[in-house]
C-alpha cells in the first residue's frame, strides 16, 4: 500500500463497495428481505475511507448505528456484514446486533453504538489504556453533528483533553440530525468551534475529498501518538438518503441533494484517478461491477446461513 496510486485505487474500490452495499441494503429493506431499520451512509464514503486509511493496524475506533461505511473500510467481509443485517449466526455479531452494530474486533472496530454519543467515552477509554500501557496506538471515534449536543460528547472531549489521550474525534457533519437541520438544534454552523473549550485543535475538513480526509486524520493521529493530545476534525459532508429506512427526507430544501451529489466523493476521486492516469474509465466500470458482484454474493451467502437458537444467544451475555 506504500505506492500512493495503489492506495488510492483501493480507496476508490472501498468507496464503491460501501456505495454498492448501502444501495443494495436499501433495496433489501424496502422489499422486506431485511427487517427492522437501517441508517445508510451514501455520500459519506470519503469520511469513512479516508479517516480509516490513516489508522495503524493496532489502532481502534468506535462509530455509530450509521457505521456500515467504517465497518467495510476497516475490511469487514461484506458477507459477514450482510449476514449480521439479516440476523444470521454467520454475522459479525452472530445476528444479535443487526444493522446498528457492525462490530469486528479483529479489524479494530470495537463498537458501533445505537445510543447517540455513547461511543465517544469508549474511544477515550481505549486511548487511555494505550497511553497507560505505553502502546504506540491511538483511537478514532466517529460521531454525528447532532451528537455534539449531548452531554457525553462534552464529557469525552474534556477527559480526552485533560488527560491528553491519544484519540481523534471525527465529527461527521452531514447537516441533519434525524429530521432536524443543524441550526434547529445547534447555535453554530462550524462544529470545529466545539474544540475551543478544551484547548483542543478543531479543524474543518472537506468530507467529500478522501485525500483531504486522509491527510487531516493522519496529522491528527500523529499528534495524538506524539503525546500532544486529541483533536476534533469536522468533516463537512451529506447523507443522500433519509435518516433511516422509514424517512423519505421530505424536510430537505429542493436542490440541496443535487448540489451535494455534484461533489460526490466517488465522482471526485474517480476523476482525479483518471487525470493522474492511475485508472481508466473502463477500469472504474469494471471495479464497480466487481464490488456489486461481491455484494450480491454476500446476500446469497447470508440468506443461506442459519440463525442461532435463543439458548445460544443467551451464552453471549456473560463471560463467566
Amino acid at each position, binding site marked *: 500500500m506504500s505506492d500512493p496510486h495503489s492506495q488510492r485505487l483501493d480507496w476508490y474500490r472501498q468507496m464503491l463497495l460501501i456505495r454498492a452495499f448501502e444501495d443494495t441494503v436499501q433495496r433489501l429493506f424496502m422489499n422486506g428481505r431485511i427487517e427492522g431499520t437501517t441508517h445508510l451512509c451514501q455520500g459519506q464514503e470519503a469520511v469513512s475511507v479516508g479517516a480509516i486509511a490513516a489508522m495503524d493496524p493496532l489502532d481502534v475506533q468506535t462509530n455509530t448505528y450509521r457505521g456500515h461505511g467504517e465497518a467495510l473500510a476497516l475490511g469487514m467481509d461484506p458477507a459477514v456484514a450482510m449476514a449480521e443485517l439479516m440476523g444470521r449466526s454467520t454475522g459479525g455479531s452472530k445476528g444479535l446486533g443487526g444493522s446498528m452494530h457492525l462490530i469486528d474486533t479483529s479489524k479494530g472496530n470495537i463498537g458501533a453504538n445505537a445510543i447517540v454519543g455513547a461511543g465517544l467515552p469508549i474511544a477515550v477509554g481505549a486511548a487511555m489504556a494505550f497511553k497507560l500501557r505505553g502502546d504506540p496506538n491511538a483511537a478514532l471515534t466517529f460521531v454525528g453533528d447532532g451528537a455534539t449536543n449531548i*452531554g457525553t460528547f462534552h464529557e469525552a472531549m474534556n477527559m480526552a483533553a485533560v488527560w491528553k489521550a491519544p484519540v481523534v474525534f471525527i465529527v461527521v457533519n452531514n447537516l441533519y440530525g434525524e429530521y432536524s437541520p443543524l441550526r434547529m438544534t445547534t447555535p453554530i454552523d462550524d462544529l470545529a468551534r466545539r474544540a475551543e473549550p478544551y484547548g483542543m485543535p478543531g479543524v474543518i475538513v472537506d468530507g467529500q475529498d478522501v485525500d483531504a480526509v486522509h491527510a487531516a486524520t493522519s496529522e491528527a493521529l500523529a499528534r495524538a501518538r506524539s503525546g500532544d493530545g486529541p483533536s476534533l476534525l469536522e468533516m463537512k459532508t451529506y447523507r443522500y438518503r433519509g435518516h433511516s429506512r422509514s424517512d423519505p427526507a421530505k424536510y430537505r430544501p429542493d436542490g440541496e441533494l443535487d448540489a451535494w451529489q455534484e461533489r460526490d466523493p466517488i465522482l471526485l476521486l474517480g476523476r482525479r484517478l483518471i487525470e493522474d492516469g492511475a485508472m481508466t474509465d473502463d477500469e472504474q466500470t469494471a471495479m464497480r461491477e466487481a464490488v456489486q458482484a461481491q455484494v450480491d454474493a454476500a446476500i446469497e451467502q447470508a440468506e443461506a446461513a442459519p440463525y442461532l437458537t435463543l439458548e445460544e444467544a443467551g451464552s453471549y451475555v456473560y463471560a463467566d
Partner: protein
Amino acid sequence: MSTLTEQQAETVAEPTEMTYRDAVNLALDESLADDPAVVFLGEDVANAGGVFKTNTGLAEKHGDRVINTPICENGFTGVALGMSVVGMRPIVEFMFADFMPSAGDAIVNQLPKYRFMSGGALSVPVTLRVISGGGGRFGTQHSATGESWFMAQPGLRVAAAATPGAAYELLKAAVRSDDPVIVHEHKLLYTRKGPVRRGAVAEIGRAAIERQGDDVTIVATMLMVDRALQAARMLETEGISAEVVDLRWIRPLDVGTVAASVGRTGRLVVAEEQWHDAGWGATLISRLVMQGVYLASRPRAVSLPDDVLIPFSPPLEDAAIPTAERIADAVRDSLRS
C-alpha cells in the same frame, strides 16, 4: 383527581373508533388546545409528525408550544422541570424508552424529589411520553419497555397504555396531574384500533378488567394485554375461562383490583414484556402474598427469558418476547397443580 372525574362525568362523549396512534395524537392536541400552559417538547416532535407519526399537525396548530429539542435527554427533561415549577405543564417525548437512562438523574433525583425538597412549595406537572417495547427488530439498545425501571421511586407515577382508549385517557390524566407522570406507549400498538371516549380522564392507580373470567386471572400491560386476550380466546375453546386485567398503572399499583380478581379465580399469571426481576410482576405477587390473598396454585410469570438480552435477529426476538401461546401454557400449567 375527584374534580377531574366529576368534570369527566359531564363531558365524556360517545366512544369513537380510532387507532392507538390517533388516540395519542388526539390527547396531545386536546391537551395543548385546552390549556395554554401545556407545552410539548422532544427530539423532532415538531418535524414530519414525529418519528412515530404521533404528532401530526400539532406543530402547525400549536406553534411555539411544540418544541424540537437537541439530542440531550437529561437536559431537556430538566428543562421541562424548570418550565413546570414556574407554571407550565410540559409533555416530554422519549423517542425510545431506552433513552430514559440517559435522563436518569432528571428522572430519579429531580422530577420526583423536587417538590419534597421544597417542602411542598413547588409542583412538578411534567408528563413523560415514552415510546417503548420490542418486536420491531430495533436491537438490544432500542427495544426495552422500561416500564418498571422507576416504579420504586416515590414522587413519580408510571402508566402504560394497552389500548387506544387507555392511551388517550392515561395521557389526559398525566397532563392534568400536578405530579410527574411517565406514560408508556408501545410502538407495536400504534396501528391497533379501538374505542376512545373523548373527554374521559383515567383515574390514577385504577386497573381495568379487559375481559371477565372465572378460572384464572392474567395481569398484563401494553402489548401483553393483547396477547393475554388472544390466550384467553384460545383457552376458551378448551373450556378455560380467563380474566384479563390491564394493569394500566405500575405506580401506584392497583393491588386491590388484582386481589379481588384473584379472590374470585384463585389463580394468577402475570404476562410481562420485561425480565421478572425487580418488575411489577414480582412486586404484585409479593404484595398479594404478603396480604395473604388465597391462591389455589402457585402464581406463574411469563416474562423475558432470565439472563438473555433482546436480540436483533428476528426469530430470536420473537422467541424472547412472551407470546399468547406461552401465556396460555402458563395458564394451563397453573390449572394442573
